């Protein structure tokens, strides 16, 4: 039985240095199987993620964008992710209004020890984006 792998899509992930990037590392060290569509960009804090990063990525070729930071109250800089939460929620509600499916954008919180959860987030989000297909028809 041969299995034809589905064509890879381009998913951009903005991960905070202190929690989610560590969580992704934990998942790697634990050798959890993950889809390979995600390209990770490390940012100092989820509060660094300007909603325009997400829009720019989606407009210039990404099929999905994932933002992940420390759990609320666990931010390395105390309150960065509280600001991020408001901004990203605003963006989440604006995207479908301008005709971009909000399933292409997801924000979540993953701590450095949650390798298992990271695997679930990446797998779940990748499947969700694959269900929608490529955003840009070439």
């Amino acid at each position: 039985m041969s299995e034809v792998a589905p064509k890879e899509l381009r998913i951009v992930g903005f991960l905070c240095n202190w929690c989610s990037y560590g969580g992704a590392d934990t998942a790697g060290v634990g050798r959890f199987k993950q889809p390979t569509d995600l390209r990770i960009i490390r940012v100092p804090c989820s509060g660094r993620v300007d909603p325009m990063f997400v829009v720019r990525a989606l407009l210039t070729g990404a099929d999905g964008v994932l933002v992940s930071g420390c759990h609320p109250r666990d931010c390395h800089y105390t309150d960065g992710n509280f600001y991020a939460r408001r901004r990203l929620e605003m963006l989440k509600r604006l995207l479908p209004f301008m005709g971009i499916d909000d399933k292409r954008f997801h924000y979540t919180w993953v701590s450095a020890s949650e390798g298992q959860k990271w695997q679930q987030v990446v797998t779940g989000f990748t499947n969700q984006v694959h269900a929608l297909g490529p955003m840009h028809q070439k």
Partner: protein
Amino acid sequence: MSTQKLKEIIKQVLPDVETVICWQEGYDKLNVTPIFITSPEQVDQVVWNPLCAQNLASYLPSQKKKVAVAVKGCDSRTIVQYMQEGLIDRNNVVIIGIPCKGTVSKKKVQKAIGNEPVEDVTFTDGSIKVKTPSGEKTLALADVCPTKCTSCQFPTPIVYDQLTGDAIKSDKPPESVYADVTELEGKTLEERKAYFASQFDKCIRCYACRNACPMCVCQDSCIAETRDPHWITQRNSLDEKVMFHMIHALHLAGRCVECGECERVCPMEIPVAKLKKKINKEMKDLFDYTPGVNPEDKPPMYTFNVDEAKIKEHKL
């Protein structure tokens, strides 16, 4: 009309301030431009009629000395928002409030008279009479008013030091403000995408909407034009145009005071304010916040709650 009262108030406040910012007649009767009054002789040039649509409060952050400014109800929200964001010192501004029954869109009048040259414009209660070489035309104010006036909630300024007439109460239902956004929300994702693509594709990136926007305070350092960071290129593609409008919308998230200046100045008649109104609607829902209403409020993106009542974690 309260023009006489307005002139009296200007004469009265002029000695205490450096400049009074008001409106005067432009190159013809249909055009109104700002006037910066520094001497009593200029006061006679002041006009006040429904054509005074420009939001003069936009000049405030760049003023260094004490100034007085004439504002309509919608313009006063700009001042309140400036106060919230600490962009002006309230002690340095004298606000001359004008209760306004609705403005007139110059573009709509020009369309109605077939872009003929204008010889004279007169106002009677509820209508505008325009004289052109081919005759006179009377238009109802309700037919030529900008969209913002059809759902005006603040006909009387929210903050003022002097008022030129009796305060008016709004007779428009509060739901009407976001009626156009709600209508668009009722459509499918594909329809909305096509709608915005067709609208933003008209954009010539003249940046007039940004220049006229009272809340776009970065002006010359706007990231739409800087090379470092290089957010958008000069390429004339739809994506770049959309990106520019996203920059404008996201930088105004929870700050847009819905003065309608962006749509007034747009040469391509793009509904520029739609995205901002959508964000405002969500801000109202999420944080019960309306920009430019209460000087004590804090813009929602400038602050946070540890436990957000309305933000739920999204599941995959």
